[in-house]
């Protein structure tokens, strides 16, 4: 019988070998995939036991913190947002039941202290409980507060303020706002709200027709490609037949022999329409891409919460490229099927302000460990060299004209030179606005001081009967002033 016993023993060893194999598979080889499973609540529950790091505004205002609940093994941390609606966008929320969003999601690893594999293993060996790092953002609390308050007066929309030289996000607000503290109670209701859509960050997800603010891009393409100089004149009649439909200036006004300064100051549609046709698809799209169109902005927010700006074929849900047929004249004045986020238009203003160099927008500024050491600092990086410094200077001059004597005089700040551009896209019958016939998307983009730009801002208001120069320009002015005053 001994032979059989030995064989039986061998068989039992094989069985145990299979057990070791399966255990290895679940615990090591398939572990990452299992942690991603929806049914697996463990990763979230475990994160809940880690004191998540705080999120702070540039001035130290606490945007998000974790408070302990329960004792012993039942101890867990719950997220609190002391400022309520103020930073709901772009900070987002983090709750076990509803997951996380926006900044909270993008910076999750740092906030739960998983930044470096080595230090977390060392901590484990030393028996240190895992603890998250704090993140200081570049958000200017007072400017943010002012922007949200003014926007709530004006209507749904968004304001984005970037520091041109670094890409630091100083202000990002979206109206309607939401209070992240209320997410566990109101999530379903908000998610179902198709009108206010409070959970949507309109600054990065609001796709709006940019209207005349896009003329800055067309002008940049014209100047930088050499198609025009500031002295070049174009005859711009009050009405121009384009592709069978008349393109009109405001009040049908004729501008014969107009230069760029005149055309931008008075937002002459037929002038830019002709320039667009002259440039052609390839050139116009090349410059659009340099300014950040046709790509998801490289901001520190989750990719699926940041929309791509460009000429949208909404039926196929895709962004058109230079190869696709487009109405160049209307694209040149920000019509056609062009849709842009407020963040994108802030990037346009920022690139011009920074001598033609577009920086990647970033909300975070510093990561600080629980002992108060700075672990990491935001390193400003270049997204693209959109236009030459010379072109940027020429554009700045033209944009100053808009504020000094054109459609954007409401943006003027006493004692500070301001450069900007208004925009008013007609959106009749927009269901989101209740279907009214006189509804506009009102814009203002610009920067200040024009001779030493510190801040570039885009303000956009949905569903208004007013023009960009009347409703968006004042928001620009007040927010810019608040930021400039805050820095002194």
């Amino acid at each position: 019988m001994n032979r059989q016993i030995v064989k039986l023993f061998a068989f039992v060893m094989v069985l145990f070998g299979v057990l070791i194999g399966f255990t290895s598979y679940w615990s090591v080889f398939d572990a990452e995939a299992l942690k991603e499973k929806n049914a697996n609540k463990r990763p979230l529950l475990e994160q809940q036991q880690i004191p998540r790091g705080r999120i702070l505004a540039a001035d130290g205002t606490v945007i998000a913190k974790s408070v302990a609940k329960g004792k012993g093994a039942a101890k867990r941390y719950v997220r609190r947002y002391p400022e309520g609606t103020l930073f709901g966008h772009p900070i987002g929320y983090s709750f076990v039941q509803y997951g996380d969003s926006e900044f909270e999601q993008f910076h999750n690893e740092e906030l739960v202290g998983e930044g470096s594999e080595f230090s977390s293993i060392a901590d484990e060996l030393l028996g240190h409980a895992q603890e998250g790092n704090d993140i200081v953002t570049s958000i200017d609390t007072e400017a943010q507060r002012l922007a949200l308050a003014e926007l709530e007066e004006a209507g749904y929309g968004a304001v984005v303020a970037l520091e041109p030289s670094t890409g630091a996000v100083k202000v990002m607000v979206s109206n309607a706002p939401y209070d992240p503290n209320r997410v566990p109670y109101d999530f379903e209701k908000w998610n179902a709200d198709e009108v206010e859509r409070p959970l949507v960050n309109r600054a990065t997800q609001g796709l709006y027709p940019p209207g005349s603010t896009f003329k800055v891009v067309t002008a940049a393409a014209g100047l930088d490609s050499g198609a025009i100089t500031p002295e070049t004149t174009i005859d711009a009649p009050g009405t121009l037949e384009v592709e069978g439909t008349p393109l009109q200036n405001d009040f049908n006004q004729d501008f014969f022999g107009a230069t760029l300064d005149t055309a931008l100051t008075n937002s002459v549609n037929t002038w830019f329409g002709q320039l667009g046709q002259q440039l052609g698809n390839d050139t116009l799209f090349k410059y659009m891409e340099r300014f950040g169109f046709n790509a998801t902005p490289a901001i520190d927010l989750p990719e699926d919460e940041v929309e791509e700006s460009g000429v949208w074929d909404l039926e196929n849900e895709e962004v058109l490229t230079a190869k696709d047929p487009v109405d160049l004249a209307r694209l040149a004045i920000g019509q056609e099927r062009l849709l842009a986020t407020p963040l994108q238009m802030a990037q346009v203003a920022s690139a011009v302000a920074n001598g033609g160099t577009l920086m990647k927008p970033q909300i975070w500024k510093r990561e600080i460990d629980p002992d108060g050491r700075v672990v990491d600092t935001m390193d400003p990086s270049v997204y693209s060299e959109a236009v030459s410094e010379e072109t940027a200077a020429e554009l700045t001059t033209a944009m100053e004209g808009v504020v000094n004597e054109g459609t954007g005089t409401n943006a003027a700040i006493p004692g500070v030179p301001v450069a900007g551009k208004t925009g008013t896209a007609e959106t009749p019958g927009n269901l989101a606005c209740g279907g009214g016939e006189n509804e506009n998307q009102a814009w203002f983009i610009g920067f200040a001081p024009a001779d030493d730009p510190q801040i570039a801002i885009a303000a956009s208001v949905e569903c208004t009967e007013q023009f960009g120069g009347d409703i968006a320009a004042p928001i620009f002015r007040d927010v810019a002033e608040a930021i400039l005053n805050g820095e002194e």
Partner: protein
Amino acid sequence: MTSARNRELLALVPVAALLTAGFAAVFSQENEQLGNLSLIYGAYFLAICIATHVYLRIRLPNADPYLFPLMATLTAFGLVMIYRIDEGLARDQANWFVLGLVLFALTIQFLRDYEVLERYRYTIAIGGLLVLLAPRLPGIGQQVNGAYLGVKIGPLAFQPAEFTKIAIVVFLASYLREHREVLIVGARRVLGVTLPPLKHFGPMLVVWGASMFMLVFIRDLGSSLIFFAAFLALLYVATGRFSFVVIGMAMFLVGAWFFASTVPHVHERVDIWLHPYDDPQGSGYQVLNSIFAQADGGLFGKGFGEALITVPGTDNALLPAAQTDMIYALIVNEVGLFGAVGVVLIYMLIAARGFKVALLAGDGFSKLLATGLTAVFAIQAFVIIGGVTRVIPLTGVTLPFISYGGSSIVANFVLLALLLLVSDRARREAAEPPGRMAALGATA
């Protein structure tokens, strides 16, 4: 052979150290300060083990020196894991451990001449099968998760299947010892398949019937599997006919398939095993959270007392039945793949020592008894670890010596006692003059 006992004594020291370190780890996790209570627990455990060791030194001086320390290691490990889940449960378990050792000593005391078991084999088998019925008796029976596994009389609760498995092994070892020759010689080839002679095979069918009965009537899928696997293992060792095993397996599979398609309970178990993601919050919850817990453990684990068993702040189980069926998942979660492989290795070592006892044993009954006891022990470990790791459908059996449960601990110590009894005699005879050994070898 006192050197064997000295080796046993030496092997017990690291066991006590492991227990002390384990308790210390759990304490430091729960109280954030290290009391000397863990040292006291370690000392108690070591004292009990040494007392057992002294008893073995007197009664069974030649018995295998590694089996007891290996099983003590599992018990120590189990105590730490259970303590980490619930202090009260660990206290129960420690009491069961002591009671188990008392029965262990009594078994050794009164069954020194274990051939006496052969004489009562039918009584033992029938008794073993009858107690299986108890959980379905009104008043004392208990239903857990759809299976009728337990009996509760006053404060005393136990699971008869744990004891029945020993009774069945004793019966089979004895029956096969007597009939194995006729089973081999009387075999007929029909259509190219070697069939055992029906006349001598009848009683074996009873075992098959008992397994199917358990499958259906008391819904104990796990024990049914263990019984039948042990039966096939013994049949193979006794006859050397692999075809018998194949036939037996086919019979079991046909029976299992028949019941899987007709009995909802069995069907459901198989379904959950194959498609756990169909109902992740319901029927698939336990097995999914078992593998999620293992994924959470990784290579090194979270550490003693660090894994989540319930949803924090609630009593909702994240790992249901963590102290019994799911304890292996908790082990992987807390001590990682390395720790879990260590546990599996201990089971492998016990199997190795157990089969070694069978190899050394002189007579057929001893060989088959040692083989059966070892097989039933190893297969039980495989069935539950395999269920937890989704090798096979999950069934509710205990992980020997580690899972919480009095019947399991006590029954397994009786099993160990029988194994040591066989071992003591085998090694004593092996140490005697070679002439006698050769004679014994011939019968083996």
